């Protein structure tokens, strides 16, 4: 036993134990609840019987991803005030969901969002378009979770030495083919991917509801307890912020370590319109002759950063209300009123959670400035995992225990978000593609098998894609998924719930136009960013950046951004034009094709908006049962 575990030398036993408990506990809960999942309805919508408390915990557990758990703290630390919009809008996006979408969507009584898309417009074609978007947004959102899993596992086992043993092939290798100390990135991706795929295939939506709900509470515990201990030792939130800035009066302050040169200045960090929103103009100014720089900055910096801020707010708020893997959970509520109550509790649960990550950011800035020297996962992104180790010298093992707790929280974060994504994508494949398009007459048993097979296919694909994205930034990938969801699903749901004049062609035009243009815009910025990362050799970007580094498209894009910083901002944060564009397209095309509004639109609208107590929902399903074979 001792010899087989010898390679664990140098791994913190507390971090290892807590992470192991989280993973094993997840598998155990998955097996346990799998026994109760039997029918197709259990697998797709958890039998529509999840209570408000469980469902709110499960939705919160699913929503708080790697980006929330580690990325938000890292961003607050690296860019300051502007990054606060992320946690605030992640939480407040649910208000839009609550006000306009949650109740009606649940009343419609579908299994998946593509179900709603087809049912609302009586159009099988539209189901296909909607399925493509579910899968597409899902994979975009999956990759950062996988990346998080890979980097955290590599972090835990960073001092493992696999060289010279039977496991040498696992060790990371350098360019010359020599084995190095450490743990491979892909191992974490495979581990987390396999565990969750197993859980979903065994228990479906009902199986993961319990797991996700428990994981919310693990995450809430893992983010709050360590920070309270840290603040008790190093000074509270207000004191940490009080230490930043020249006018640092009016409150307690703490003694902090000297900042490194790469860190933003105190004023830029604590005030609005800091490095995040001004970087396009700053980059443009750097290319100008020195004499013109100050005037250029004075003229453009603040107005453009206001545009950036508004576009970011729109992307995050509308994107939250349009994420398919979140929306699908609303179908697990017993009725529309429960859907609304669930949403309110979700806002409270995630709001409480999101107060904490910025505290890690503020403490990290004051006490771990050396993290500014690294980039992404090697720098500020790991502040949540590293910060508790500050307690080491003074309090010994306490630092390790708290660090172990935050690592366990990080594991819970990727696992629960990936479970949700996997269920929604599996549902799209098994229910919409197999059950509705390929084999509409499949028996319930065949549908169940289809669900399990689809879970394995999607899980395998996600593991493969996840192992290829080590170079990309977690927050950046999540931001792209939000921008695309904001410009496609949010306008679709909002308009088709509240405007009865909407036609299938209008909906498709708006969703495709807004979604694809937003995708194109963010793709352009990521091409030039990846190329720039390759040119500066700041990241271990590998293949992707060496391909784009000398590509003429990347170079001309780089030129264009320098001359037109506003264009760069509008491409990086497309929501400010893409969301209105999608809505305008929907209105214009629907007006032009107004003859194709479904004939029974009044009935559909009644089902969406009338209280369940009037008994209209049952009536609707009976009407359609004969033809559609529900």
């Amino acid at each position, binding site marked *: 036993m001792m010899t087989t575990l010898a390679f664990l030398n140098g791994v913190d036993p507390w971090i290892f134990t807590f992470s192991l408990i989280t993973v094993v506990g997840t598998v155990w809960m998955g097996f346990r609840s799998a026994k109760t999942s039997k029918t197709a309805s259990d697998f797709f919508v958890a039998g529509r019987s999840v209570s408000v408390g469980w469902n709110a915990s499960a939705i919160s557990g699913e929503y708080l991803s790697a980006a929330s758990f580690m990325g938000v703290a890292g961003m607050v630390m690296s860019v300051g*005030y502007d990054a*606060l*919009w992320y*946690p*605030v809008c992640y*939480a*407040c996006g*649910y*208000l*839009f969901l*609550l*006000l*306009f979408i949650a*109740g009606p969507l649940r009343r419609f009584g579908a299994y998946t969002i593509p179900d709603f898309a087809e049912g609302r417009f009586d159009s099988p074609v539209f189901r296909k378009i909607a399925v493509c978007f579910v899968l597409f947004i899902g994979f975009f959102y999956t990759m950062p979770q996988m990346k998080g899993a890979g980097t955290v596992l590599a972090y835990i086992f960073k001092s493992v030495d696999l060289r010279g043993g039977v496991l040498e092939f696992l060790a990371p290798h350098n360019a010359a083919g020599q084995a190095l100390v450490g743990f491979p990135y892909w191992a974490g991706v495979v581990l987390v991917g396999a565990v969750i795929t197993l859980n979903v295939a065994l228990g479906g939506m009902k199986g993961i509801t319990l797991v996700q709900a428990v994981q919310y509470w693990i995450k809430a515990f893992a983010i709050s307890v360590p920070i309270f201990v840290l603040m008790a030792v190093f000074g509270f*939130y*207000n*004191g940490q*912020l*009080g230490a930043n*800035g020249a*006018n*640092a*009066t*009016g*409150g*307690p*302050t703490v003694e902090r370590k000297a900042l490194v040169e790469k860190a933003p200045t105190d004023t830029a960090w*604590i*005030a*609005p*319109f800091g490095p995040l929103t001004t970087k396009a103009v700053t980059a443009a100014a750097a290319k100008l002759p020195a004499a013109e720089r100050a005037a250029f900055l004075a003229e453009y910096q603040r107005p453009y950063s*206001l545009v950036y*801020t*508004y576009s970011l*707010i729109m992307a995050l708020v509308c994107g939250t209300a349009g994420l398919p893997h979140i929306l699908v959970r609303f179908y697990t509520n017993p009725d529309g*009123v429960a859907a*609304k*109550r669930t*949403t*309110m509790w979700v*806002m409270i649960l995630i*709001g*409480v959670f*999101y*107060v904490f990550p*910025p505290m890690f950011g503020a403490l990290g800035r004051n006490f771990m400035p050396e993290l500014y020297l690294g980039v992404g996962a090697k720098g500020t992104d790991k502040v949540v995992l590293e910060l508790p180790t500050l307690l080491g010298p003074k309090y010994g093992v306490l630092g390790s225990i708290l660090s172990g707790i935050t690592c366990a929280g990080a594991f819970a974060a990727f696992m629960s978000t990936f479970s949700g994504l996997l269920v929604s994508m599996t549902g799209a494949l098994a229910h919409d593609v197999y059950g509705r398009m390929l084999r509409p007459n499949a028996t319930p048993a065949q549908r169940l098998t289809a669900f399990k097979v689809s879970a394995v296919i999607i899980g395998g694909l996600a593991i493969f894609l996840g192992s290829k994205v080590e170079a990309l930034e977690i927050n950046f990938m999540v931001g792209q998924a939000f921008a695309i969801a904001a410009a496609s699903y949010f306008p679709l749901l909002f308009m088709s719930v*509240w405007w009865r004049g909407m036609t299938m062609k209008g909906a498709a035009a708006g969703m495709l136009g807004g979604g694809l243009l937003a995708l194109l815009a963010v793709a352009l910025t990521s091409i030039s960013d990846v190329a720039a990362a390759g040119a500066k050799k700041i990241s271990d970007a590998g293949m992707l950046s060496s391909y784009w580094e000398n590509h003429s498209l990347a170079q001309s894009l780089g030129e264009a951004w320098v001359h037109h910083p506003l264009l760069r901002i509008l491409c990086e944060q497309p929501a400010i034009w893409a969301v209105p564009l999608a809505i305008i397209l929907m209105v214009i095309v629907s007006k032009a094709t107004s003859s194709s509004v479904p004939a029974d639109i*009044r*009935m559909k*609208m*009644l089902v969406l*908006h*009338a*209280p369940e*107590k*009037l*008994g*209209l929902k*049952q*009536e609707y399903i009976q009407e359609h049962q004969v033809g559609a074979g529900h």
Partner: protein
Amino acid sequence: MSTPPPPPDSVHSEEFLRSLMRRQLNLSVACAATFLVVLLGLPLLNYFAPAFMATRVAGFTLSWLVLGVLFFPFVWIISWRFIRRSIALEEAEVKSVKR
């Protein structure tokens, strides 16, 4: 599950649907407007009154305190009010039909 009694015909009338959607949308829009005024007003305050928003309140800048801490309870209050009024609205609708 027992089949509910068929709803009276007034439910299927155009007027009922219109008033139903209008009342629910009015409530949603009123709540959304309260939220948006604060959400979209905050960047404007930061832009036009930077010195005021940088005032220190027990270590926080005013702007950080509003966005990083106070914003969450503000949204909870809106959603709580919305839920209460929306449930009351639905009950009133059911009553008006059954009468």
